[in-house]
Each structure stands twice: as C-alpha cells, then as structure tokens.
C-alpha cells in the first residue's frame, strides 16, 4: 500500500516555529502530530490536524543524542493513540532547506515507536516526520503492515508543495 501525508501549511509553520525553540539541554526538540486516515483505493491518505510539543520537562539529559524524550512523553502519545484511534507521528526537524531523510538514530527510534503505536491503534497509520525549512520526509507504518513505507508528503496551502522525490505513484 502507498501513503500520502497531506499536511496543512499552517500546521507545518506551527511545528517549524515550535521545533526551532531552544531547549535547556536537548540539542533539538520533538513533538507529536495527530491525524486521521482516509483511503483512496490502495492509497492511504493521512491528514494531520493537531500538533503537540513534548513539554520541556519530558526531555532526558543525554549528550550522546540530539534529543531524548522520557517515558512520560511516549506514554502520553501512546495513550492518545489508544483512546482516540488517531494517527500519531513523531516529529522533529533537521536544518537547511529541501529534501531530507531520517538519520540512523532516527530510524532506530521510529522502529520502536511505529510498531508500538500500531499496537495501540491498529486502524490508524503511525510513524515519523522530519522537517526542513521547506519540506520534509515521512516514514509510516500502515494498518496491518509490518514494514514501514516511505510516504509522500504534501504541504497544503499557499504555496502547495508536493513531494517530487518519491511520488505516491498514482
């Protein structure tokens, strides 16, 4: 199954603005994005609608990684997915503009979070989103699929930014 994440531009701007904020000890910030799933035949369409930053006090001081969030932050995200059935995406940002991809550490993190969110809300899609100044990249675990897929990302607003690197192939 293929996947598109359609992210409203005002939500993209909101997340970028939040993730740019400095933290007392973490080198970068993390948040969670919640949304709902729709389908266009065999294509999963994820439409996020709410972003929740990880509160400052839920970061663990660890100089070996850019950011580490604590168990409470993960618990809150999992609880919300479980109680609402919403899609949940772990979000962080890279510097620069243009295309990007997840680092090895990012992938390792998502390899744990994605499947565990799936167990919380089986009918939704979950995964990770990494942003740059102009676009981003998504890795998604779709319902009933064990391997994640690279999802196309559209940023919807003025302007409309479409994913040209790995199209949803429709």
């Amino acid at each position, binding site marked *: 199954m293929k996947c598109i994440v359609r992210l409203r531009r005002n939500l993209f701007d909101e997340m970028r603005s939040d993730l740019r904020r400095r933290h007392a000890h973490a080198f970068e910030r993390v948040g969670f994005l919640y949304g*709902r*799933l729709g389908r*266009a035949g065999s294509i999963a369409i994820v439409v996020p609608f709410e972003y929740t930053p990880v509160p400052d006090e839920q970061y663990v001081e660890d100089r070996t990684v850019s950011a580490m969030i604590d168990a409470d932050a993960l618990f809150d995200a999992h609880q919300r997915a479980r109680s609402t059935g919403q899609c949940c995406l772990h979000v962080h940002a890279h510097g620069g503009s243009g295309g990007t991809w997840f680092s090895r550490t990012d992938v390792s993190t998502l390899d744990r979070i994605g499947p565990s969110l799936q167990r919380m809300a089986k009918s939704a899609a979950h995964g990770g989103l990494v942003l740059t100044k102009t676009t981003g990249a998504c890795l998604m675990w779709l319902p009933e699929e064990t391997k994640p897929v690279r999802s196309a990302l559209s940023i919807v607003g003025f302007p409309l930014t479409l994913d040209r690197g790995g199209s949803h192939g429709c």
Partner: protein
Amino acid sequence: MAASSRFSRQGFLGPDAEDILATARVGIAGLGGGGSHVAQQLAHLGFRNFVLYDDDAIEESNLNRLIGGTNIDVAMSTPKVLIAERLIRSVAAPSVVVEQHQKAWQDDPTALRSCDLVFGCVDGYRQRWELQIMSRRFCIPYIDIGLDVTNAGDEGPKMRGQVILTVPGGPCMRCIGFIDDENLSDEGRRYGDAGIRPQVVWANGVLASTAVGLAIDLLNGWTRTVPEKGVVYLSYDGNTGLVFPDKRLRYVKSPKCSHFPDDEVGEPLWQSL
C-alpha cells in the same frame, strides 16, 4: 532543471516549474464548457497526470462552447470525458496519464481523493458544496468556476461568474458567503435542478484561464504573493469584462474556516450514541 524547448516560453515560472507541474495530479469534475477549457490549458502548460469525471455525452447544444467537441462527436454521442482525454493527449507529452471516469465523481470518488488539486466545473450549489466537503476531508485545495446569465428586464442580460480557490484550514465557500443555506434550499426546492443555464465560450474561457492561473501560482508561487484572507474569491462581470476580488471578501474576518473543524478529516468518525 532548465525548461525544455516545449516550455521555454514559460521559463519565467522558475527552473522547477516543469517538474512541479508534471508531478501534480489534478482532478477535474465536470468536462463541459468550463472544464474542457481547464483541461486544454493544463495540458498545454505541462500537467501530466489527470483525473476526469463527467457522466454526460456531448449534444449539439454543447458545440457553442465545449472545447475539443466536434460535429462527429455529436453524431456519435461521445462522452465528454473522452473528448477531454483526446484533447489532452493531442498536446501533452506522450507520458501523460489520463484517468477518465464516465460517471459522477460521487459514484466512485477514489481517484478524486488521490488528486493534489481539484477543479470543480459543475452546475449547482449542492454539487459544489459536496466537492468542497470532499476536498476538506482529504486536504485538497479546491478551485471552483461557474457562470450565470440572468435577465435584468429593461437593463438586458447580466453575465456574472466566479473563480474561487479555497485551501484546507482557510475560509471555505460558506465562509465567503458564496454558498449558504438559502441558495442550497432554493435549489433543493427546484428538486436540485440547477437549470439550463446560458453559457458562452468566451466567458468560460475567462473563468478557466483565471482558474488555471491560480493553480499555477498555488503550485509554484511565481507571483510571490499570498492571498490576504487565505482564500481567493474573484468575480467576473461579463458585461464589462472585468475580473475583480468579490466584495464579500471584506466580511471574512478570520483566516480560519468556521464550518470545517480541524479534526473533521479522513474517513467520517462515527460515534455510538
């Protein structure tokens, strides 16, 4: 990427424009007078991925305005989507993908949901509102065009049209006052019949061209401007030939939609009572 020779005259749109337009998957609901113009222009501009919906076939009365329609098509009752497909393929690159559906989009909306941008070239407020709802659920920018000619008695015919671009999160067609309970009810009382509306090719061309221009700017931002109120609502006065921002925009107070909550997206969320 430099513009290929085919698109060398639209190089001012930027070095990535050709790629951007080729990537976009565009849906057109209604391939009559307005939609056929839109399809033609998008093909010329370099769009390569089309989804077309119309359940109707061409008739003689369409020949005054249906771009690409011929006398033979009328004799053969060619479906409008096939005329549009033929038109697109006659100018687009050979790699163009045209998915045509000889049905109303409501009968199978799968392909429309997968589009990056949707043009509504349909009749009636109810049809437009249903397209608006679908585009909000699936987070798709929606461009609507329409034309009407009314008889103003001694003053003669008055030709008016609209081009509206709404994006998810921003004001919708209800927020800007284009659609309201009154006009939906009026139409409902007429059994949903939008009526046989006067239509002419030049006016459809103005509306379609304006709509396509908005689509290009939306996709590549070449004008480097953003609509102040987060929505574009242009009115066309066919009597004077002017296209201008509709005065109802001044009543739009918030850049946020008040009819579609942020979380009313994706498949409907049914709650047990």
